[in-house]
C-alpha cells in the first residue's frame, strides 16, 4: 500500500462523481489466462499511479476440466486515487469469460455493478456445465446488475484473422482483447503492454502482433460502445504518494528480496533448502536467480531434508533458510527442535494456507499460529514474526535474519497464501537505509584455560558461532541436553533445568530488542481496540478507518512480533475497554493474548479460504456500540452468526 497523509484521507471523504476506488474482477476458465490478464492490468494500474491491492484466486488443479464451476480462476484488483489496503469487498465490474465464471462470481458483485460477459462461450454445453438451466441474459436473473454481453470470441477471431492463426490459438488472444477493453475503461496507456507482448513473443512475432491486434480491437470496441450502453470511461487520479521510485511486488518476491538483503546486512552467505509446496515454492524460484548475492539454493528430497540441509549450512557458517507451508512445516518440526537445542541461526518461512492436512492448498488462512509458537516437542521457544502485506514482508524478512543471527536461534516468519500471491505498489527502499548487523565467528578459544566453550553465552544469552574448519576449536554439538559452557552431553536434573531456563530466557529477551508496540490507527486507549496480525491488516485498517469516520472510539493495533511480543503490549491493551481480534482461524491469537495478558479478548473468526471483507469487520465493530449500523449499504453479505457478542464474553 502507498503511504498517505491524514489530510488526504479526510479530503478523500468529500463526495465526488468519480469514485475513490474501483474493484474489478476478471474471471474465466483456469486455461483462459486470467491470472496473466490480472497481472498485466495490475502493472498498468501501477504505472498509472493508482494505489492498488490484488487477490488472485485460483483452483488447486493445474488445468481443471474446461468450463466447470471448480475450474474457475479469478483475479480481483482494487485500485484508486487514495490508499488501498485490501483487494476490495465487492467488485464494481465483473469480467466473465464463460458461464461458470459468471455463476461462481456474480453474487459477489455490487448491486448495480457491471457485468462484461463473452456470449460466444454461452452455448448449451457450457451452460450445462455451469448448471444454468436457462440463459442468464434472458431469464432476468441478472436484473440487479448492468450487463454488457457480446461475443468477445467472435470479435477476437475477427481481429486476429490477418495473422492466420489456428482457431485455438486465435481464441487464446481473447484475454488480450478483454484487457484492451479494460484499459480503455480506465483510461490507461497501452504502450507498456505492447512492449511487454513484443518481449514475451520475441521469438514468434506473429503471435505478438496477433495479441497486440486483439488488445487494440478491445480498446477500439470501448470507444465505439461508449456511445450506447452502460460502458463508461473512468479516470482515477494517481494516488498522492511519497516521492521516490516504485514498483509492484508480491509477498513471495518481497520475502525473497528481504532474505537476500538480510543475509547481506549480516555479512553472511545464504543457504536456502526448499521442497516444492504451494504457495511457498515461489520463494525458491526467486532465490535460484539471485546466486550472485552469495545465495546457494538446494531443492531437497523432502521437507525434512530441506530444513536439515539448512541447519547443516548454518553449522558450517552460512545463514540457513528454509520455507514451506503448513504440512511441510509440520514435517520440519523435529529439526526445528534441533536448531533450538544446538542454538544455530535459521529462518523458517511459513506461507500459510488452509488446513488441516492438505486442506486448501491455494487458499489463504492464518491457522498455523499455534504451530509456529508452540508446535514442537519439549519446551522449544522460538521467535515468530508475522508480515502484514507484500511490501511489509521485505522488512520482516530482514528482521528475521537479524534476530536469528544476533540470538543464535531459529526464527519463524509467517506469511500466507494471500500475501504471497497478492501484489501492491512498493516504494523501493535504499539498502543503505538499513543498519547492518554483521555477524562474527569465534576464531580463538573463549576459555582462558584453553579448550573452547561452544555454549558459553553472551549477555543476550547467545552462544558463539564457530565454523568447522577453524583450527583448535573442534567441538561436538547435538540434540542431547548439554552441560553449561562445554556443551558436553549432560542430562543431569540441574543442568536440564538450567539450560531450559536459559533457552526460554534468551527467546523472551528478544522482546527487549524490538520496537514498542504502536497503535496503527487511533489512540493508546479507548473503548475498542481491534488487534490483528498478518494479512488481516488491510480489512481491519479500512474497517477501523470507516468506523472512526462515523465517530466511533475504535483503534487498530497490528502486531508484527507475535512471539515474543513487545514489552509494552500488555499495558497498551489494558488501556482499552474491549479488544476484538479478527483472525482467519478459529481464534488462535485471541487465546495467546488471553494467556499472556489475562484480558478478555473477543474473537472474530473466518475460515472460508477467503480474506476478510471490510464490511465483516465493520459489522463486528458495530456490535460494541449501540445504534450503529454495522453493514452500511448491505453491499456484502455478512454472516451474522459469526459476529461477536461482547456481553456474553463468548468464545
Amino acid at each position, binding site marked *: 500500500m502507498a503511504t498517505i497523509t491524514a489530510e488526504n484521507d479526510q479530503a478523500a471523504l468529500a463526495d465526488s462523481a468519480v469514485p475513490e476506488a474501483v474493484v474489478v474482477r476478471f474471471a474465466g476458465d483456469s486455461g483462459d489466462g486470467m491470472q496473466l490478464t490480472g497481472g498485466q492490468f495490475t502493472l498498468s494500474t501501477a504505472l498509472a499511479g493508482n494505489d492498488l491491492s490484488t487477490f488472485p484466486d485460483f483452483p488447486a488443479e493445474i488445468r481443471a476440466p474446461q468450463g466447470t464451476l471448480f475450474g474457475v480462476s479469478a483475479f480481483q484488483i482494487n485500485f484508486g486515487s487514495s490508499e488501498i489496503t485490501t483487494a476490495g469487498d465487492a467488485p464494481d465490474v465483473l469480467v466473465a469469460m464463460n458461464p461458470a465464471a459468471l455463476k461462481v462470481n456474480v453474487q459477489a458483485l455490487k448491486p448495480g455493478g457491471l457485468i462484461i460477459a463473452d456470449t460466444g462461450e454461452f452455448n448449451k454445453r457450457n451452460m450445462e456445465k455451469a448448471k444454468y438451466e436457462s440463459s442468464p441474459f434472458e431469464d432476468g436473473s441478472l436484473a440487479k446488475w448492468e450487463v454488457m454481453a457480446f461475443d468477445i470470441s467472435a470479435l477476437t477471431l475477427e481481429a486476429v484473422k490477418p495473422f492466420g492463426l489456428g482457431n485455438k490459438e486465435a481464441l487464446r488472444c481473447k484475454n488480450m482483447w478483454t484487457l484492451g477493453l479494460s484499459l480503455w475503461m480506465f483510461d490507461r496507456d497501452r504502450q507498456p503492454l505492447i512492449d511487454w507482448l513484443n518481449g514475451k513473443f520475441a521469438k514468434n512475432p506473429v503471435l505478438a502482433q496477433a495479441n497486440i491486434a486483439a488488445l487494440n480491437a478491445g480498446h477500439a470496441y470501448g470507444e465505439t460502445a461508449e456511445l450506447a450502453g452502460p460502458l463508461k470511461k473512468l479516470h482515477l487520479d494517481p494516488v498522492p504518494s511519497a516521492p521516490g521510485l516504485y514498483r509492484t511486488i508480491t509477498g513471495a518476491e518481497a520475502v525473497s528480496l528481504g532474505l537476500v538483503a538480510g543475509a547481506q546486512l549480516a555479512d553472511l552467505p545464504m*543457504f536456502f533448502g526448499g521442497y516444492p509446496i504451494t504457495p511457498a515454492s515461489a520463494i525458491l524460484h526467486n532465490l535460484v536467480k539471485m546466486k550472485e548475492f552469495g545465495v546457494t539454493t538446494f531443492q531437497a528430497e523432502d521437507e525434512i531434508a530441506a530444513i536439515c540441509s539448512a541447519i547443516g549450512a548454518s553449522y558450517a557458517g552460512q545463514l540457513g533458510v528454509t520455507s514451506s507451508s503448513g504440512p511441510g512445516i509440520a514435517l520440519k518440526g523435529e529439526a526445528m527442535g534441533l536448531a533450538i537445542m544446538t542454538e544455530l541461526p535459521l529462518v523458517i518461512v511459513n506461507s500459510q494456507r488452509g488446513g488441516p492436512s492438505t486442506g486448501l492448498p491455494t487458499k489463504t488462512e492464518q491457522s498455523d499460529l499455534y504451530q509456529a509458537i508452540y508446535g514442537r516437542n519439549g519446551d522449544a521457544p522460538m521467535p515468530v514474526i508475522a508480515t502484514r502485506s507484500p511490501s511489509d514482508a521485505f522488512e520482516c524478512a530482514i528482521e528475521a535474519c537479524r534476530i536469528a543471527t544476533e540470538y543464535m536461534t531459529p526464527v519463524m516468519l509467517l506469511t500466507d497464501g494471500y500475501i504471497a500471491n497478492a501484489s501492491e505498489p512498493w516504494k523501493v527502499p535504499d539498502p543503505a537505509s538499513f543498519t547492518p548487523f554483521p555477524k562474527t565467528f569465534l576464531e580463538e578459544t573463549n576459555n582462558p584455560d584453553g579448550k573452547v566453550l561452544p555454549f558459553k553465552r553472551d549477555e543476550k544469552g547467545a552462544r558463539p558461532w564457530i565454523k568447522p574448519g577453524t583450527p583448535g576449536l573442534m567441538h561436538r554439538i547435538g540434540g542431547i541436553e548439554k552441560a553449561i559452557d562445554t556443551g558436553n552431553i549432560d542430562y543431569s536434573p540441574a543442568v536440564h533445568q538450567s539450560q531450559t531456563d536459559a533457552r526460554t530466557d534468551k527467546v523472551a529477551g528478544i522482546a527487549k530488542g524490538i520496537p514498542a508496540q504502536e497503535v496503527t490507527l487511533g489512540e493508546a486507549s479507548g473503548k475498542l481496540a481491534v488487534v490483528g496480525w498478518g494479512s488481516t491488516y488491510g480489512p481491519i485498517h479500512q474497517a477501523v478507518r470507516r468506523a472512526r469516520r462515523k465517530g466511533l472510539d475504535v483503534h487498530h493495533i497490528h502486531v508484527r512480533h507475535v512471539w515474543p511480543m513487545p514489552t509494552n503490549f500488555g499495558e497498551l491493551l489494558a488501556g482499552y475497554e474491549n479488544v476484538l481480534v479478527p483472525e482467519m482461524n478459529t481464534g488462535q491469537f485471541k487465546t495467546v493474548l488471553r494467556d499472556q495478558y489475562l484480558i478478555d479478548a473477543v474473537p472474530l473468526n473466518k475460515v472460508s479460504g477467503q480474506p476478510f471483507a471490510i464490511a465483516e469487520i465493520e459489522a463486528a465493530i458495530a456490535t460494541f456500540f449501540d445504534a450503529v449500523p454495522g453493514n452500511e449499504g448491505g453491499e456484502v453479505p455478512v454472516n451474522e452468526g459469526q459476529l461477536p457478542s461482547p456481553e456474553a464474553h463468548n468464545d
Partner: protein
Amino acid sequence: MNDMTPIQTTLKDWETDQEVRWCPGCGDYAILKAVQRTLPIIGADPAKTMFVSGIGCSSRFPYYVESYGFHTIHGRAPAFATGIKLANPELDVWIVTGDGDGMSIGGNHTMHVLRRNLDCQILLFNNEIYGLTKGQFSPTSRPGTTSPTTPLGSYDRPASPCAFALGSGARFIARAYDVSKELSNTLIAAHAHRGAAFVEIFQNCIVYNKDRFDDFAAKGVADTMQLWCKQGEPLLFAKGTKGLSLDLDTLSLKVVDVVDGDWQAAGVVVHNVKNRGLAHMLVEMPFGPFPMALGVIYDDPAPTFEGSVAIERQKSVAGKTADLTKLLSKGQTWTVEPEAAHGLMD
C-alpha cells in the same frame, strides 16, 4: 575425500575427553579404533574433519572423535551433511549411521545423498537390530529374528544395504566388519574415492544380536566364507581353492573349484571395481551357497554434487554483480516526483 595438505597426527590426537558409552564388548569400539587409526594414515586435519551422525548407538560416534562433530536427528545425517558440504566444500565429511538410522527412518536420505554423489564417506554400521531402543528387529534383520516386537520371529524380508546403495546410484561400495584387519584399508579406499563412498560395516551387537555374523566373521570359518575383492585380482576364497566364475547360461555367478591354483582354467572372474554389473552380482550373492563379498566391490568415480553446484553457480553469476539497489528496483518501475507529490498533498 577432498584435497588437503596432509597433517601429522597420531591415534591419540583423535580421542576426545569424553567417556565412551557403548556396552562393553560392542563392535563399535573396534570401528572407532579403526577410524582413529586410519585418520593419521590419510593425513587428515582434525580442524577440517567433520563427523555427522543421526540417532542410534552408532550415531554417538562423533562425540568420541576429536574433530568437528554434529549428532543430529534420526535418519537425517545425509541431509545435514549436504548442507555442511555445500556451505564449505573444504571439509572432509564422514557420515556415521546404522541399519535403522540409514536404511529405515532415513532410507530416503541415504538414497538421495548417494544419487547426488555428495563427496563424503558413509559408514553404515549394520548390526541387524535396533540397539539403543533395546533390541527390536531392524530392516536388515534376517527372517525369524526374535525381538520384543517379533516374539515369534520376524517375517519381513530384509533389505540389503549394498544392493540398495548401488540401486540408488552409488559410485563406491565396500564392505567390511568391525574386528577385521582389513577395515582400515577399506576406509582408506573409501576416503580416496571422490564422491559418496558407501561402506557397510557388519557390527556385532553384543547385547541384542550377539555373534550374528559368526557364520563368516568367526575365526574358524573366515577363510572359507569370506571373499575379499581386490582390483585386478581373481575372485578367490577358501585359500585359493575356490573362486567365482560366470555361468553363461544363467548370466549369474557360480562357485567353482580351483585346482592347483589354476584359476584361469577354472574360469574365475578377475575383479574390476569399475564393472557395475559385477558389483550388482557380488552384493546380491545369497550367503551360504556363496561366501560374503568384502572389500572394495565397486569404485567408479563420477562428478560430485558440490562440484556440479559450483559449476552451476559460475554459470548463473557470470556477468552479474551483487548490486542490491539494482536487484530491488528490477522490473517495471515508476517515479513519483517530489514536486508532484508535494502539490497533491497540500
